[in-house]
């Protein structure tokens, strides 16, 4: 499969639109889902998917073949999501500081609840809580748990996408799972009170 993708990428680098469309057809939904899980917002996931494929087209000629094409594409996707989340964080922090100077008091920023479009109706509420809890994890733990728990990617592939060792990835995943359980315990207690 990777050879086929590699061939499509090489042809894309030469300006072959049909090969680019084939790459898009194969990866677009996967990239869109990755962006959707990270950003928890449909419009932003769409924008990031667009950015990812523009980058794939532009950087196809620079691909050295030292990783699988899929790993390379998902690395671009995860990096774009992380960049966007960091931008939002900076914006929030700036608005928070600004709100003190404007005398309006602290502005509250609540992450809007997100319904994953791929969930059945009876699982929507639990899915929403899970996404909310994942959203509270630190960046690296969030990235790893999305790829491991929801996307069900092999650990080695996650390590390759994250550009870190398998051992480091497994350790991050363990911490992420423990933190996720801890957050969910708090949700449970809050629900029962």
């Amino acid at each position, binding site marked *: 499969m990777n050879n086929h993708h590699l061939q499509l990428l090489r042809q894309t680098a030469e300006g072959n639109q049909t090969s680019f469309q084939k790459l898009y057809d194969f990866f677009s939904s996967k*990239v869109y889902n990755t962006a959707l899980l990270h950003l928890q917002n449909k419009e932003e996931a769409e924008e990031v998917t*667009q950015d990812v494929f523009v980058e794939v087209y532009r950087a196809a000629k620079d691909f050295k073949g030292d990783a699988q094409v899929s790993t390379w594409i998902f690395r671009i996707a995860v990096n774009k999501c992380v960049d966007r989340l960091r931008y939002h964080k900076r914006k929030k922090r700036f608005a928070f500081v600004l709100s003190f100077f404007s005398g309006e008091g602290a502005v509250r920023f609540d992450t809007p609840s997100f319904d994953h479009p791929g969930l059945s109706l009876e699982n929507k509420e*639990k899915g929403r809580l899970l996404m909310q809890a994942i959203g509270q994890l630190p960046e690296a733990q969030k990235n790893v748990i999305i790829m491991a728990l929801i996307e069900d990617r092999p650990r080695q592939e996650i390590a390759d996408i994250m550009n870190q060792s398998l051992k480091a990835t497994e350790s991050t995943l363990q911490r992420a799972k423990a933190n996720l359980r801890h957050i969910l315990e708090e949700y449970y207690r809050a629900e029962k009170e």
Partner: protein
Amino acid sequence: MNNQQKWIEDVMATASQMRQADAPLFLFTRIEQAIQNKAAEVISFEKMGMALAGVLLLLSVNLWVLSNNTKNMQNNQEAVESYSAMNYNLYGS
């Protein structure tokens, strides 16, 4: 397994029940458009670079011609002076 643990397991189990959502329709058309726009930006940069290179070339040719002219004028002046000095024996022999 107590109620809390069961509830947590249920919530975590929804992770594997999230079916893949499809990428939005017409996204590929938008991507093609974005690529074309970027290409247009690159072309305009190239054009700007070429225009700048043209201006630099024109300037350097002008400077070269100007410096050559000045040298020629100096040479001519020296030639005229030495010719005059020889012919009219201005300084005596």
